């Protein structure tokens, strides 16, 4: 593998400012996370904000978010290697590597949520395959193996060479897995008739689309901030096309969100309306209107339409980042409010004690662990990609 400017494994001097800043942010997040990771691993789960009524919190939401990036990135790589889509040319390795990093981060995030982490092995040894959770643990573990094999094959393949049959088979397997698994996490929530807000139609089908959109957003960051281009013209072309893809995805996102929320609204079912009210006007309004809608959807859409900004590396990366932040908020808005309802009238007030509330705010411990996991993922991604020269963009024709 050829390194761009230096023979050293890592040459910080050769890195651009965006790469250095990202590494610093990753490092800061990881250091902030050490407190949380230590507390969670060696003290326990007491300091978390979730509990017996709001059962799943930030870590589960981040699992959905990170797993979405992993599967979405794989879909993107498949578009390059299987379908030869020109606009994605040259992004395959970076996308696969993103999958390789975000998948373990997703599994770490969900692992933190287990009351008995050390027993995770039981899901492999004595699984109940009827349980979607068991299916997801197995599915994502196999998917991680497929990502590793695909990446290995991608490295073996020389640029411009046609994709070999074995490589294609692996890619097809991974492609299907990425679609089914990204939808599966939606189904994991949707099968719970106990939580009517999750049973509104369209919940699980939106997940693969959102996963793909998060893969594209990550690629905007990668191309905008990290990729070394031999020819700036190439970067410009990629932005132009990826920008259009991102606009199309943003519009579909808005449409799906409207379809989902309006369906919930017009049902007027009290147990569906309660979480919806919390999202639109209650506890989660900021996360919904400001982070998910404004920062994550509308502003990026507007910026995409301004060619001067959309074709500028720094801005394009920023747009990608905003969309990703919006997706993270979207995941929390799916997970938390659905559980902020009284399962039976008066249940939260019938008995008082720690973790018996339907009001949920992520605790410092949860935020710290999440920062640690994401920080570690950022460091692993940027450093790993620099070492493996994943960010070196080969010169190619982009029409």
């Amino acid at each position, binding site marked *: 593998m050829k390194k761009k400017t230096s023979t050293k494994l890592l040459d910080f001097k050769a890195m651009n400012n965006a790469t250095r800043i990202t590494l610093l942010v990753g490092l800061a997040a990881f250091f902030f996370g050490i407190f949380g990771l230590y507390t969670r691993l060696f*003290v*326990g*789960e*007491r300091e*978390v904000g979730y*509990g*017996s*009524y709001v*059962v*799943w919190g930030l870590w589960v939401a981040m699992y959905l978010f990170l797993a979405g990036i992993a599967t979405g990135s794989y879909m993107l790589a498949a578009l390059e290697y299987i379908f030869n889509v020109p606009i994605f040319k040259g992004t395959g390795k970076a996308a696969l590597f993103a999958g390789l990093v975000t998948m373990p981060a997703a599994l770490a995030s969900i692992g933190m*949520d*287990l*009351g*008995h982490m050390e*027993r*995770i092995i*039981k*899901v492999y040894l*004595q*699984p*109940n395959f*009827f*349980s*979607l*959770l*068991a299916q997801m*643990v197995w599915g994502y573990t196999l998917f991680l193996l497929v990502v590793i094999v695909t990446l290995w094959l991608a490295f073996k393949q020389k640029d411009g060479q046609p994709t070999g049959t074995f490589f294609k088979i692996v890619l097809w397997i991974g492609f299907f897995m990425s679609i089914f698994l990204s939808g599966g996490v939606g189904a994991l929530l949707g*099968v*719970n*008739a*106990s*939580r009517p807000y999750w049973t509104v139609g369209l919940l699980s089908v939106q997940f693969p689309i959102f996963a793909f959109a998060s893969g594209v957003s990550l690629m905007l960051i990668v191309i905008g901030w990290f990729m070394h281009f031999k020819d700036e013209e190439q970067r410009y072309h990629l932005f132009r096309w990826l920008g259009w893809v991102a606009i199309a995805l943003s519009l579909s996102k808005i449409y799906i969100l409207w379809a989902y929320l309006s369906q919930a609204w017009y049902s007027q079912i009290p147990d569906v309306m309660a979480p919806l009210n919390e999202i639109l006007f209650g506890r989660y309004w900021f996360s919904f209107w400001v982070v998910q809608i404004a920062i994550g959807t509308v502003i990026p859409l507007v910026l995409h339409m301004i060619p001067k900004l959309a074709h500028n590396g720094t801005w394009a990366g920023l747009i990608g980042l905003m969309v990703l932040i919006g997706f993270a908020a979207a995941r929390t808005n799916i997970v938390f409010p659905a*559980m902020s309802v009284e*399962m*039976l*009238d*008066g*249940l939260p*007030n*019938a*008995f008082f*004690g*720690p*973790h*018996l509330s339907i009001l949920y705010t992520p605790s410092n411990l949860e935020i710290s662990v999440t920062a640690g996991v994401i920080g570690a993922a950022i460091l692993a991604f940027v450093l790993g990609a620099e070492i493996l020269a994943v960010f070196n963009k080969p010169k190619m024709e982009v029409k």
Partner: protein
Amino acid sequence: MAQEPKDVLVRMNEDLQRALEKAPEDRHWVMVIDLRKCVGCHACTIACVAENKLPPGVVYRPVLEKETGTYPNVTRSFLPRPCMQCDNPSCTPVCPVSATYKNAEGVVVVDYDECIGCRACLVACPYGARTSDFGYTYTEELPVLDGAIVGREAADDYECAANYEYGKEWAREGHRGSPIGNARKCHFCLHRIHEGELPACVTTCIGRATLYGDANDPDSLVTELIKSPNLIRLKEELGTEPRVYYMV
């Protein structure tokens, strides 16, 4: 002269002894809660906490209170909520390791040694009947009084001494061992039942509002009661087939 009617506790006790002579799969445990008799004293909640040594944040049988109407036409009603021991439970199929299941007697149990603490069952239960054990004790924040005969340490010892859920010893040692980190729920006091004793909530209920027995026994009290027309089950529309009936 007409025969004095038996106290329901005596009758239920006799029903229980008869049921225990049968094979487990021939018993059909049900609970009937007469809401007209419940005075909202919460004795059953506390009896359950004491029997199963439940830590803070874990509750098997809260009593829900509801106030309806406006002054002066106000009523207060109470609804004790144990696990419904559903015949078609939504909590068991979601368990990734089959740690929770319906046992031979039809009671939904949790195998604390197998449970990984994913809380999927808490999410799936439509009655909020499961709580997670986060490892607290009631006494941990209390000051120790020097010279007190019975101080925090004695209370601590009591709290950390084993309970006998599912017929096994579960001591609270350290912060990590089961049942800490597990999903926990009402199990109709199976450990007492197998010793020939009624569930703690049944024997403690001051209004004799909680009734228990084998619905497969034509002579049992509960068989008689579940024929009444004034019975409801919670969220029956979900098809969970609860084994807890409410008389209204």
